[in-house]
């Protein structure tokens, strides 16, 4: 599953030990450039920078990056095509500025998606969630999100195991059986999630949990050279775009 692949890439990335705040600043800068600068050359430069950083210094596997970006590309292609098709009295045709509009839409969206994917493939969610506290998100909400993140993998494993067992019993042969199996699969995953939460609660209550799930996060100090890159790269892309335009 791609989701696990993106998470595994984040844990195995050469940037795993870098401060999540530094990486957030870099990717936010690139996302901002992708959104606000003209597609040519702004989005092209953002896309190239994000891919080069991910596959170069961050050492994200090219196959993982390529597979993950297929999903947004499918939406971008259908959405952009729909946006530039004109339906009038004469039937279906292209809008007058179809090529320019489609190019601009695709450019902004691909560059932005690549910048978000750079963050996703270099920073595990468990490093990003504590950063939400800095944005003044309530501790209880961050804790719920943290439990959600940890349980997602447990439930995905349950989902895979149950589905395999159903498939071995011809549970996914034909639409009728598939729907029945999907319903039973969803119910089994839900009751397992309740059961798992209840047993975790019992275990934590036995250890005296009263005020929340306190964990010791990894110390990932900020780096001045990386911070300089995080500020200089978006600034450089902006300056170059303004000069070329």
């Amino acid at each position, binding site marked *: 599953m791609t989701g696990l692949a993106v998470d595994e890439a984040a844990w195995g990335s050469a940037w795993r030990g870098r401060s999540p705040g530094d990486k957030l600043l870099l990717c936010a800068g690139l996302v901002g450039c992708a959104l606000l600068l003209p597609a040519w050359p702004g989005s092209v430069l953002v896309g190239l920078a994000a891919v080069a950083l991910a596959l170069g210094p961050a050492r994200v596997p090219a196959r993982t990056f390529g597979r993950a970006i297929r999903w947004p590309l499918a939406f971008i292609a259908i959405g952009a095509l729909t946006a530039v098709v004109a339906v009038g009295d004469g039937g279906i045709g292209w809008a007058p500025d179809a090529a320019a509009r489609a190019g601009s*839409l695709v450019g902004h969206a691909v560059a932005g998606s690549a910048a978000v994917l750079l963050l996703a493939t270099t920073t595990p969610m468990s490093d990003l969630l504590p950063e939400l506290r800095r944005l003044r998100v309530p501790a209880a909400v961050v804790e719920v999100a943290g439990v959600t993140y940890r349980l997602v993998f447990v439930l995905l494993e349950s989902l895979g195991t149950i589905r395999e067992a159903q498939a071995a019993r011809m549970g996914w042969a034909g639409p009728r059986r598939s729907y029945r199996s999907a319903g039973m699969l969803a119910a089994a995953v839900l009751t397992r999630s309740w059961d798992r*939460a209840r047993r975790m609660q019992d275990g934590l209550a036995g250890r005296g949990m009263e005020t929340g799930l306190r964990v010791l996060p990894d110390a990932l100090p900020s780096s001045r050279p990386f911070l300089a890159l995080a500020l200089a790269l978006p600034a450089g892309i902006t300056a170059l775009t303004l000069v070329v335009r």
Partner: protein
Amino acid sequence: MHIAEGFLPAGHALGWTLAAAPFVAHGARAVVKEVRENPESTLLLGAAGAFTFVLSAIKLPSITGSSSHPTGTGPGAILFRPPVMALLGTVVLLFQALLLAHGGLTTLGANAFAFAVVGPWAGYAAYRLTRAAGAGLLPAVFVGVALADLATYVTTSLQLALAFPDASTGLAGTLAKFLGVFAVTQIPLAIGEGLLGVLLFRVLTVNARPELERLGILKPAPVPTGGAA
């Protein structure tokens, strides 16, 4: 069907974020209150969020020949109520953006408005109205879950139509264009997700009746009184 990163103009992305913010903040306040009063709820709420994420990973056979993924917010809205789903749905969208590359960060507000606000509220309202009209649990679940999915798709189409209006046909023409293109996958998916909801609740009424009673979805079964022989 999530709007990809960078697809919406900056003004629209900001506008939809501001529109979703009060609902998500209301959901966050409800979660904070619940966790403060019952710290053990953290785990149950986390499990509900994880279930919503995982439900979107179940493949449903589609009449178009391929397979589709349910949104997962319809059953969640019926089980856990729309305010909680506004927050949990937004958390799930954030995870989908960063774990699956579905959606984005600047489009998180627009996707949250469609997926975590309009979908759950429309689905929950349809479920309650259908039950109030005298229908049983399973027909009401079908209507609620299918409508949650349809409302999400209509809202996303509206967001795209507002962002990219057609010069000749205006907003209405553009909306019809986006609705028509996405209807090919979304209408069969809404019906499929409604059926999945019915099958899910049918199993839950047998295997997890106490939980459904605790959530207020089923009335507690009357306790049989022992009669003298």
